[in-house]
């Protein structure tokens, strides 16, 4: 049974990518407003899928990934902003960055590399900690990034933003990278490292006893995950055209984690589905906040209800569907579902005569 993985293996990512392509195709037919939300959603998908590589497989919640997004976004922006502006505002940049202007794909890749490099340093340090302590340490990392990026005026512009980043990210560009992220994440999941990492998530002691070096597999996932999230950051920069450090803080951290949890931490399908569902919830609430005309009266929710609504949805899902909407399963995976301990009995009964 185990050996069929390579044959059937890539049904899940292909179905996911096809569904996302369909959503993108329908979205670009809509107006500018829809296109903006769509692009935003696809970029978040890159970020959330990137987070899932680490969080989903290791079971360690990370609050710090938005920090990698910040690192990737700024690095990409440094490379593509007009040198004239940089020489006035970002005087602390090294010469080759300050006076040069590089192609956007390279800039985004550069952001990914920098995020990965930071992840090697940070991960090497904190992957030795136990799950919860590691989570809090990633929090500390988020604070460090925020503190540095919002105060290092000569390099990041401090609280005044970096402006004039070329806005080239269209829905299809974002889709391409989201598809790439899904593919890479799945490839990691079914790889040897992915399997070892999920073994450590289920039972650390047993995994260690099976000669799995937990620190190493966690670190590998952490670095890959940071690189993907870094790409998401670069896309974000070239979508908005403006960067401030405070964008990449608690609120975004919350929304991306909410997306992961709503869909279900246990599966890649969950990460993708969570992004779509949470985006729809947020957009609906935002529309309600804006007001809906019913005949002559306009009904609208007070400001803030979007966030509260999202919190309520998240809490309800955690209470009633603790393993998320997907219950930790992958889409179209007839034989073997992702092994979530909580649902293992249900899964066993639900397994059809697939073979």
């Amino acid at each position, binding site marked *: 049974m185990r050996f069929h993985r390579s044959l059937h293996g890539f049904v899940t990512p292909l179905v996911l990518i096809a569904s996302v392509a369909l959503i993108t195709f329908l979205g670009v037919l809509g107006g500018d407003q829809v296109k903006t939300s769509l692009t935003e959603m696809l970029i978040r998908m890159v970020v959330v899928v990137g987070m899932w590589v680490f969080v989903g497989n290791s*079971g*360690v*919640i990370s609050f710090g990934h938005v920090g990698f997004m910040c690192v990737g976004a700024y690095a990409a922006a440094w490379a593509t902003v007009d040198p004239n502006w940089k020489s006035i505002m970002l005087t602390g940049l090294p010469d080759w960055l300050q006076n040069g202007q590089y192609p956007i794909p390279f800039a985004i890749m550069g952001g990914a590399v920098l995020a990965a490099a930071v992840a090697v340093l*940070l991960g090497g*340090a*904190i992957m*030795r*900690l*136990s*799950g*919860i*302590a590691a*989570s*809090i*340490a990633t*929090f*500390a*990392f988020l*604070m*460090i990034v925020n*503190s*540095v990026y919002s*105060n*290092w005026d000569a390099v990041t512009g401090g609280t005044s933003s970096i402006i004039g980043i070329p806005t080239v990210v269209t829905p299809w560009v974002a889709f391409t990278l989201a598809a790439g992220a899904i593919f890479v994440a799945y490839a990691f999941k079914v790889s040897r490292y992915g399997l070892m990492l999920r073994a450590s998530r289920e039972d*650390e*002691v047993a995994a260690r006893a099976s000669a799995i070096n937990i620190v190493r597999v966690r670190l590998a996932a952490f670095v890959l995950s940071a690189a993907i999230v870094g790409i998401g950051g670069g896309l974000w920069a070239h979508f908005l055209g403006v960067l401030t450090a405070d964008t990449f803080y*608690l*609120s975004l951290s*919350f929304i991306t*984690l*909410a997306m992961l*949890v709503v869909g279900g*931490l246990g599966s890649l399908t969950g990460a993708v589905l969570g992004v779509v569902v949470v985006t729809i919830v947020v957009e609906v609430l935002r529309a309600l906040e804006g007001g809906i005309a019913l005949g002559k009266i306009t009904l609208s929710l*007070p*400001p*803030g*209800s979007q*966030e*509260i609504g*999202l*919190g*309520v949805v*998240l*809490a309800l899902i*955690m*209470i009633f569907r*603790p393993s998320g909407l997907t219950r930790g399963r992958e889409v179209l995976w007839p034989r073997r579902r992702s092994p979530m301990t909580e649902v293992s009995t249900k899964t066993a009964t639900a397994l059809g005569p697939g073979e």
Partner: protein
Amino acid sequence: MINFLQNVIDALSLGSLYALVALGIGLLFGILRLVNFAHGDFITIGAYSLILPSTNVVATMVIGSWHWAVLIPVVCAIVVVVAMATDVFVFRPLRRSSAPTLMIASFAVSYMIQNGVLMMYGARPKAVNLWSALTTQVTIGGLREPVLQIVTIGTTIGLMLVMSLFLKHARWGVQMRAAAEDFLMAQYLGVRGNFVIGLAFAVSGILAAAVSLLFLAQTGALSNVMGVPLALFAFVAVVVGGMGSLPGAVVGGFLVGIVTTMLQAYLPPDLRVFRDAFTFTFVIVVLLVRPAGLIPSRSIAERV
């Protein structure tokens, strides 16, 4: 020398605030394995409860203008009710969930409270003048200290004494410690689980209320995220001290407060803006040297 002593008192005063917050977080973690992000928002609620709910720019004091002997118990009661309500509505249905799920649930609660406050009170920070008499300075042998700092340190020491007496000798306190040691075993021996957890939320609510008043008297400003930085520093304090250990939480809180103040005082001016980055780096370094924290708790170690 005088300067240094002044810094020490500043450090102790900030440290005692962090220690109080860390104690509230550590208490719930010990019993419930809950990393409660909403604790900072309990503090925010305590502070906002003093004024009239409105989106006006000017804050109108209601409870805040009462005599302190009435004000303190009322604010404590409000925060305790909110804390216990989060338990009943969110955390109790999640009793059997894993620690990461609880953590994210508390993140959601925190997000809801922040935006609920925003909705009721408006987005702009408000200036509030609580107990202005406390900001006067006293001179002790060349040291000039605001009374408030001494009150803060005194309150903290007082609350900690009461807490440790309660945990050591009171019937409920002993039950709480038993639950923190081994929740299942405590239940077998007749400790009512939900009662003890509710009690823990109540105690952490009282601690949050105390912090909210002390903090507000110091800063004089209300904002819907005012509790967040306190809670964030307290988290790392709890982890540094040793998760699940109450003395560890206190030690961690004081340590983080002292490090922050000393960095503020002695970093070169250019680097001073990065103070928080240095503090959190220090925290990560401490964790590298002692992954289980300074005072590791015995009960948290996983048994096989």
